[in-house]
């Protein structure tokens, strides 16, 4: 059958089937099994009410169970068996094999890098965009444009950025904007400012900001003044400040590189083949997509801040920066956490971008693509499932946190 026809047919069957199921199961319940008539009318109505929720929920529970809950269990099982030995139980052998695979560690390392950079950058850009666009008249148009990549597929974005990163042999005209810009630098004073002094300044600023952040995070733990944080809060604070310190160290290394490194001026670069840098070029694609999401949500949060608290701060003598960091940021902190975790989950699942742009070559592998590789190219279901379990493990803290919050909210 023609797929389009089949599609239409399925819509009718699917939708009609769903509706028919809901309608007739309810009729059956009310008219046949527990009729609201006769001497047992009251008792029957009560019984019908007890059953009805499950009628409403049945298809959803079935689908969720089959398509999400069962696979989690099945994947755990698969990761402990070996397909080539007839699905025999092999204990942790798959994990051991994965642990010996350098590609896995490369993927894990890259994923960690993604996990730090992408949520941080998207949230920061989103916050900046929200703060700026809320203050101008054509802000809504600007928001629309920054939000737009949200509608573009990862694959589409991959094509878009491949064009940006395109390189032609030296001497011919460059059609990738990045190389065209790059070739403008010739090692002169302009290059000195843009490629050395500016990055150094930015990195110093970032390092200072992060060091301050680390200190702010750790201060209540080492020097409690009025209120002592609880155990979980202490742990989270410690973890966050350790991560900040690590990033500060990375910034310092970056500064050293910017001071002492030599740049291949005048040579068009194959950006996606330069290890470590290429991961960042891939991350830019995701940041480009996710910033709009962060901006939309943070902008709503910013607008939710009571205007009077800001006016009170103005009267108290706070300047715009102090207002932003001492009054606005803390008030939207819960929203920042939500945005951050949402983007974190997207990052953990990121597959299409890497698959389409480098397919994990040149040391850009990430877990999701590594897993796909193992599952469908090497046909090694055991190791593939083990990799999937690693992703699941990384998601788990967020899962627990979300469930915990949802339960707290319902009370």
């Amino acid at each position, binding site marked *: 059958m023609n797929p389009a026809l089949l599609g239409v047919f399925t819509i009718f069957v699917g939708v009609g089937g769903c509706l028919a199921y809901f309608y007739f199961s309810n009729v059956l319940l009310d008219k046949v099994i527990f009729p609201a008539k006769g001497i047992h009318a009251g008792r029957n109505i009560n019984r019908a009410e007890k059953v009805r929720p499950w009628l409403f929920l049945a298809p959803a529970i079935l689908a969720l169970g089959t398509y999400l809950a069962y696979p989690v269990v099945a994947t755990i099982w698969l990761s402990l068996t070996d397909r080539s030995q007839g699905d025999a139980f092999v204990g942790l052998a798959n994990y051991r094999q994965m642990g010996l695979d350098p590609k896995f560690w490369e993927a894990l390392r890259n994923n960690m890098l993604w996990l730090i950079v992408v949520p941080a950058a998207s949230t920061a850009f989103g916050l900046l965009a929200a703060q700026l666009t809320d203050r101008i008249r054509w802000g809504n148009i600007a928001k629309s444009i920054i939000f737009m990549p949200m509608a573009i597929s990862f694959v589409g974005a991959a094509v878009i950025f491949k064009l940006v990163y395109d390189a032609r042999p030296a001497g011919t005209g460059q059609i990738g904007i990045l190389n065209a810009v790059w070739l403008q630098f010739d090692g002169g004073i302009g290059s000195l400012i843009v490629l050395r002094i500016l990055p150094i300044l930015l990195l110093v600023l970032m390092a200072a900001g992060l060091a301050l952040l680390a200190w702010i995070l750790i201060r209540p733990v080492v020097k409690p003044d009025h209120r002592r944080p609880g155990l979980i809060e202490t742990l989270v604070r410690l973890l966050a400040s350790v991560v900040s310190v690590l990033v500060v160290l990375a910034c310092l290394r970056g500064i050293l590189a910017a001071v002492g490194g030599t740049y291949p001026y005048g040579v068009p670069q194959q950006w996606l083949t330069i290890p470590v840098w290429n991961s960042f070029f891939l991350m830019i694609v995701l940041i480009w997509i996710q910033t709009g999401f962060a901006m939309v949500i943070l902008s709503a949060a910013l607008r939710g801040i009571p205007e009077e*608290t800001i*006016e*009170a701060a103005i*009267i*108290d*003598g*706070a300047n715009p920066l102090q207002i932003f960091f001492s009054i606005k940021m*803390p008030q939207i902190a819960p929203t920042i956490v939500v945005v951050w975790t949402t983007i974190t989950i997207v990052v953990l699942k990121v597959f299409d971008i890497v698959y389409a742009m480098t397919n994990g070559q040149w040391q850009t592998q990430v877990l999701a693509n590594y897993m796909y590789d193992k599952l469908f190219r090497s046909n090694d279901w055991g190791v593939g499932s083990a990799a999937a379990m690693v992703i699941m493990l990384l998601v788990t803290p967020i899962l627990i946190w979300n469930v915990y919050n949802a339960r707290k909210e319902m009370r």
Partner: protein
Amino acid sequence: MATLKLTQVEKTYGGTIDVLKDINLDIKTGELIVFVGPSGCGKSTLLRMIAGLEKISGGELQIDGQVVNDIPPAQRGIAMVFQSYALYPHMTVRDNMTFALKLAKKSKSEIDAAVSKAARILQLEPYLDRLPKALSGGQRQRVAIGRSIVRDPKVYLFDEPLSNLDAALRVATRIEIAQLKESMPDSTMIYVTHDQVEAMTLATRIVVLANKGIAQVGTPLELYERPQNEFVAQFIGSPAMNLLAGEIVATGPETTVRLVGGGTATAAVATQASDMGLKVNVGVRPEDLLSVEPGAPYIFEGKVNITEALGEVTLLYFDRIRDNDAVIGKLPGIHQGLRGTTVRMTARPEKVQIFHNGQSLHYR
């Protein structure tokens, strides 16, 4: 510790929408000035202009003799208490109070002294390390006041600080504010409210705002006894002052008015012979109306439509006569059986006001 002077201050939004114009006001050190007026008349706007949160569109504002039109809020030496309290939700009570002082780089000992003093005055000591969300409405209100006290400002600004509290708490807090003012006799305060009881009880002087301008400035009793115009006459006092149309029939140190309803009113207001025949409105407060014996002269005669016995007083609602508003009387004590009867009422001449074109003849 500070004087304020407003000279022809005005406010327009977007260059077209006039909200306030030609506001002239002198405020002396130690006064508690209350802005009252109906909702939307620009009380908050005027207060926010004084605070510096809104630009002044025209005219001049001086604090202590210095023009401050272009000086940002933080440098005006003012502190403001908002209607919603505007506490920083993520800071403890202590941090809320010290925020401004830390920004001003005050020393730690200075900050601690200021906070403990304010906390003592406002009985906030047990709550200093709590977050605002763990406080009751009244406590939050006190923190907001404490936040301004610690800064030791020249001028305190309050924008309807009590309107988010329930009735009982409102009375208690009102009294606290009055006591606070008494304990700081030198501080100047400006207080915005739409509640005339707050205005009457707290104010040194009241500024009544209406129709984009000031309707009258005066002490609470001046406003009550000698309203400058019909607006103030009806705005201050509850129920509102009765207004009865009539025509001047006798002039002199006392003036007699024949009323449309048939009665005559004598007022202790001086008029000249040229005022003879002038169309005026006579104003009498419900609480000033007295019932009269049959045969004696009366201001007003009417059938009692509804009575409301409040215990200490009884309110009489009369049938409307012609196009006058329905007259209301307020008699002390309990009066039963008046409903449906026809009653004649009068008032002492010094309690009677005369308005021509909305302006009181007292102030000619």
